[in-house]
């Protein structure tokens, strides 16, 4: 490469690399370092003192710190799994509705579905906290019309977490629908023509053409859905504060409470490291699963 462009490359990269280095990569390394330190968030980094694996022992230990963290980890896992299990099939179903040409209105449906993704999560949380009102709330009114008795939604530990999952699915499914449509457009129409000539019915076409050729799209969607799901914060911070009885205490909320509000920076960082490790394990497992299927 000509010297001139080597200098240009440096200039072009400098702003982005400096900013991402200082405000994302450096804090990430600090999180890992702090997870081995006894450190209060209200003091300078220099005041941290090395304590080995004590933070990790504590967050997995039998005290209330350990119980709360393990609860948050389990809640986040359930929340994430339910979100992905609901979002992926719905996104494919809605994608097929938008993509087909038999009935008009596909594009309008896409617009309606995707518009919810633009709404600030705080507004979503406020609106749904009202819709979910127990007793005479709007959703209970509608369930009443269907002959279903009033549900406690966010006010019972049995239903609070799943109620937040529904709110999340409602907000995000439009985005994943657009991803699914992107995947559907990549499938050559000639495959369906050939299958029809071979006498494959609609279900068989879906099972043996659409689904296998959507695998890469679905893998991508699953990874994004998981990363999005572990970030759930606003509905918990605003409506439930982790309750009732810890049933909606999820990791993003819990880590912020420990690391910022209680200023236990070392403990909070150890929790953040565990979240990062869990994500890496889950995402790698997903890719391994997809690769094994590819070889079959």
């Amino acid at each position, binding site marked *: 490469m000509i010297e001139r462009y080597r200098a240009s490359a440096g*200039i072009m990269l400098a*702003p982005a690399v400096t*900013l991402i280095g200082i405000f994302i990569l450096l804090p990430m390394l600090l999180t890992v370092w702090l997870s081995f330190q006894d450190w209060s968030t209200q003091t*300078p980094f220099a005041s941290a003192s090395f304590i080995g694996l004590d933070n990790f022992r504590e967050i997995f230990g039998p005290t209330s710190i350990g119980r709360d963290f393990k609860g948050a980890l389990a809640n986040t896992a359930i929340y994430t799994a339910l979100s992905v299990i609901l979002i992926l099939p719905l996104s494919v179903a809605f994608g097929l509705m938008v993509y087909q040409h038999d009935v008009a209105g596909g594009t309008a*449906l896409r617009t309606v579905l995707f518009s919810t993704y633009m709404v600030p999560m705080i507004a979503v949380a406020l609106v749904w906290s009202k819709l979910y009102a127990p007793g005479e709330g709007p959703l209970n009114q509608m369930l009443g019309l269907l002959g279903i008795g009033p549900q406690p939604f966010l006010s019972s530990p049995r239903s609070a977490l799943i109620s937040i999952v529904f709110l999340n699915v409602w907000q995000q499914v439009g985005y994943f629908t657009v991803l699914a449509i992107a995947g559907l457009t990549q499938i050559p129409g000639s495959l369906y023509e050939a299958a029809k000539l071979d006498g494959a019915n609609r279900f068989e076409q879906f099972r043996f053409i659409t689904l296998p050729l959507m695998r890469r799209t679905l893998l991508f969607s699953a990874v994004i859905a998981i990363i999005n799901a572990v970030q759930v914060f606003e509905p918990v911070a605003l409506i439930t504060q982790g309750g009732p009885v810890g049933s909606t205490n999820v990791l993003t909320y819990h880590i912020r409470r420990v690391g910022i509000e209680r200023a236990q920076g070392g403990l909070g960082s150890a929790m953040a490291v565990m979240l990062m490790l869990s994500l890496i394990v889950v995402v790698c497992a997903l890719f391994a699963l997809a690769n094994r299927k590819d070889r079959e």
Partner: protein
Amino acid sequence: MSARKLSGSSGLLPRRRPSGRKALLATLMLVVAVASAFPLVWMVLSSLKTPAESMQVPPVWIPGTPSLDAYEKVSGVVNVGRSMWNSLVIASITTAGILVTSMMAGYAFAKYHFRGRSLLFSVLIATMFLPPIVTLIPLYRLVGSIGLNASLAGIIVPNLANAFGIFLMRQFISGVPDDLIDAARMDGASELLILYKIVAPSVAPAIAALALFAFVYHWNSYLWPLTVLQGNADAYPIVISLSRLLSYNRGAMNTGLVMAGATLAVLPPLILFVLLQRFFVDSIVGSAIKG
């Protein structure tokens, strides 16, 4: 047989019993659209109700005499004008920064060959998958130690560059012909001038998409502003002011007020989306396929 083939079916959902199947599909699509739109429609309708209507049991779905009283009242509870302005400042400056840094870095990754290019790119892209909570605690301390906490600058500065923008720009700038760039170099144009005059116009739709994404994302963003502002109400963006309406959220009487606040916060991103959704959708599709 041939008539069916010519009927324009996508092949995805071939017709067998056309009328019954179409009716079912149309009904399903309507149900999905109504379910999806219902919460936001309910929000707007509720913001137009009087307090008496909000408390009525069974509930009134459509306000009898739509009134804007709730919008007036919400301005008395939180500083709506100031918060909307703060949100506009945060989202606009952050977006401008992201556009500049993403275009420059995207151009370098797309058009320069240098040692360590793919390694550097991979490291940057990996940060796209990092949930913000993982870096929140040290970032909070870091931003505090350079004196930016409790200010708009503290919200903006850490977000002036991101991996998604670099990724999107590299994808689209890769498609700009090298000949075009080389010709401009022959004419003695500087690299920054080439980026501004040649490359940027060629990828205008992608720039529009990135601008919209960044603006909406940072208009809606809550976790970081909440953490860094430490209760400095003068710098609250609208989403934080909105969260403070919660103390008025108990019971049905102030539903109208809370929904008026929510409607105000939702309008700017939603209007942008409706006007420019083509760019949003195209860029998601583009980045998903090419990625």
